[in-house]
């Protein structure tokens, strides 16, 4: 009886979620972190302040993040880029998944009360990163698999 799950579907999901992160960079590209049209990073951060589900979080974004926008924008951009590349290629996947889990939880907390947002999206995203973390998802069809064999 087959009691074990195949790992390749998780590898495909890992790559797709890597593309998700890389695709999401297009509306927060440096140097101004604004897209040609539509909302940019600054707009979303302001929405997190206006519709904060947790007052302390809203206060943090308002008092700490927004006054140092360029620093945090670079931090977010580089972290999302690293997570996207890590998951897409399956390199340092557990680290990428851990960072991605943090980003997903941050998005979920920040956007929970923003109109039009669906909190389940971020719950699913966080869950997937947790899954990549516990399964070491880069070992199948990923660069982590090459390094572990070598």
């Amino acid at each position, binding site marked *: *009886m*087959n*009691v*074990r*799950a*195949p*790992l390749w*579907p*998780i590898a*495909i*999901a890992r790559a*797709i*979620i890597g593309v*998700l992160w890389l*695709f*999401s960079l297009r509306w927060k590209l440096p140097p101004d972190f604004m897209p040609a049209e539509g909302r940019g990073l600054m707009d979303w951060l302001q929405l997190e302040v206006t519709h904060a589900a947790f007052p302390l979080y809203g206060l943090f974004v308002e008092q700490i993040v927004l006054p140092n926008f360029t620093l945090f924008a670079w931090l977010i951009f580089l972290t999302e880029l690293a997570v996207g590349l890590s998951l897409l290629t399956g390199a340092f996947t557990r680290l990428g998944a851990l960072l991605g889990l943090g980003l997903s939880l941050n998005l979920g907390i920040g956007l929970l009360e923003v109109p*039009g*947002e*669906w909190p*389940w*999206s971020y*719950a*699913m*995203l966080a*869950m*997937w990163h*947790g*899954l990549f973390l*516990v*399964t*070491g998802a880069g*070992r199948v069809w990923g660069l982590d698999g090459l390094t572990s064999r070598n």
Partner: protein
Amino acid sequence: MGQEQNTARQATAILRITLGVILIVTWFKNLQDGIYTADGIVGLFNYLFNDNGGGPAFYRAIINGTILQVPGLFAVFQLVGELLMGLGLLVGLLTPLAAIGAALFFFNLFLAYLGGSEWIWTYVLLTVSALVVALAQSGRAWGLDSLLLQRLGEPPRGPIW
């Protein structure tokens, strides 16, 4: 790999239960909002086609030529189908069937909302999650499919549990 494969099945079981909860919570809300009626279905697609995406032209043509010709019948199909998929995923019964059904449903939503203001990756995540749950036969961990497997062995006609 064995330990990771066990962990993977348990992790995808959590994913399965979450998908089940999402479907059932949405089912109750849709029921309260009157979506599972002829008027509800027509109103939903009017909203999608006029204000929020509506997807590519071929998708609109298919919907106009099929569902919107018999919205009352489709409403009943949707009412029963969504509930069965949600329950199947929640309790892990005939999981691959329920999950493939859910994946098709989520992919339909992806097409419907494509081009609108919604974050389209939500529907990518849902579709991929349902497909992985199906392929991992995740009802075999913490689900009724594990009982079917113990009593009946491997399914004779394809992986339906």
